[in-house]
């Protein structure tokens, strides 16, 4: 293999490409429902909540490589908490997300300060902006497992989830278990966000959720097509961005997001009338 695909011969680039494509596709798939429900801010909120989980793991002496397993349950709990507040109907989604994420992030900062100075060193920049090029074979297995489980759950519940997104009352009348689906979507969002944090970091992960879905929504005329298009944009945008970052020798996470932003701009120009 030669020419512009040459980077794929490099093992770390191959792993980054696979992880980026899977995470890009997963975030986009979840993002279709998150964006349609007006919860775009939740990606950012849960990423900040994940920081609390990461800090908790560090306090417990867990290495940064295995931090996902502490951040996952922590972030899922925060997501379910947001869901509970939303279902009580007393607060809007952005308010609930804002409160939970701010509290979790503050907790993270507090816990980081409490940990022993003898513990493993943490590069905060890596946590904030991700390190897709440092994806290990173990990380790739985690991403793949999360990818398969999330895809299967979404596939089995897709038609019900779409109905509940359009109108929860009408869906409930048709026998759809709306509350269970709401909690499942939030929990899956948390899981995917935690995995994605490893690739593009806390600061940029919400773009992975929002941009492909928002781009596809401008072009697609049915929820099925919007979902397929969003996943394609997530996968292709991630791959192109990674290649561009390799050749330009610039930050990969940021380049991926800028590529997705470029696709959004194009869709804006050519969106359906």
């Amino acid at each position, binding site marked *: 293999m030669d020419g512009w695909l040459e980077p794929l011969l490099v093992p770390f680039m191959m792993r980054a490409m696979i992880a980026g494509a899977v995470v890009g596709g997963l975030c986009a798939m979840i993002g279709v429902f998150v964006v*349609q*429900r007006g919860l775009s801010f939740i990606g950012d909120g849960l990423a900040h909540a994940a920081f609390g989980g990461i800090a908790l793991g560090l306090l417990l002496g867990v290495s940064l490589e295995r931090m996902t397993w502490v951040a996952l349950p922590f972030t899922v709990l925060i997501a379910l908490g947001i869901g509970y507040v939303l279902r009580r109907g007393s607060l809007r989604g952005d308010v609930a997300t804002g409160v939970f994420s701010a509290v979790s992030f503050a907790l993270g900062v507090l816990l980081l300060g409490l940990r022993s100075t003898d513990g493993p060193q943490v590069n905060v920049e890596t946590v904030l902006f991700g390190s897709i090029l440092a994806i290990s074979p173990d990380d790739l297995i985690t991403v793949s497992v999360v990818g398969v489980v999330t895809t299967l759950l979404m596939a089995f519940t897709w038609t019900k989830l779409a109905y509940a997104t*359009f109108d929860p*009352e009408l869906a409930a009348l048709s026998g759809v278990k709306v509350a269970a689906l709401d909690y499942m979507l939030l929990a899956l969002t948390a899981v995917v966000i935690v995995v994605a944090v490893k690739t593009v970091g806390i600061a940029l992960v919400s773009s992975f959720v929002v941009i492909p879905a928002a781009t596809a929504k401008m072009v697609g005329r049915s929820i099925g097509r919007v979902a397929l298009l969003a996943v394609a944009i997530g996968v292709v945008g991630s791959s192109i961005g990674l290649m561009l970052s390799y050749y330009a020798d610039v930050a990969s996470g940021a380049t991926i997001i800028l590529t997705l932003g470029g696709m959004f701009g194009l869709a804006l120009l050519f969106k359906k009338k």
Partner: protein
Amino acid sequence: MSAVHAEADGIPQGHFTLPDPSLTRVLEVENLIVDVPGRRLLDGISFWVPKGEFVCLCGPNGAGKSTFLKTVLGLMPPTSGSIRILGKPAQKALRDVGYVPQRKTSDMTFPARSIDLIVASMRGSWPLRIREEERARAIEILRHVGGEKLLEKEIARLSGGETQRVFLARALVNKPSLVILDEPTAGVDVKGRAEFLDLLAEISASDELAAILVTHNLAAVARCAERVVYLDAGRVSAWGLPGELLGQASLSAISAVAGGDHAAHSHHHKLPDEE
């Protein structure tokens, strides 16, 4: 139809003409109480709707109309009392109920066409692909409500009147025995409202389909109602023929709630058609 003077619990005393008790009861509500922490929303509601009857459910804001609908539809649990649809507990008979919600409850930016909404109602889940027989049924029901040309139209591009036409089609597509309409013309322009009232009048003329229309619109009451149930402070304060209630002082409050200056003294008088 026979004149029956109510005596049962929760049924208002007075000279109102109630439905013939021997008719098949599509909806029967008995002493329905709904409490939320610190408040009683429905305080012993009892009435029934016979087959084919068009009932307008009226009352001031906060009277309990929405709570009543949500409880009938199983979206809110009753504290006590019973709701039966065609003799079965309401929760087990929801397939016999069609529902037209207020326009504001659905996400009209959702990427979908009218046919998707109708087929979703048929299946109980959102369609990815639509089968030929489903398309034929969707066309048939849209034709029934005068909206055949809306089949492939994106829902985001439907006018207010068209939206309610499509929602009526999705409510009727499973051939329900009872259709519940929650202020369906609120926020719809004058032309769309008049056209929708024509449709409701057709339903009212049906001997098969029973309907409950929640409305503040006295024109709708005068045009469609075969009977009126008036809720006030969580209780049925009047239940009778439109002519018997339209002269009641309490019912005149509906037009006041609707923002009109017109008090209804009789259904022979000119009625406000603005909501």
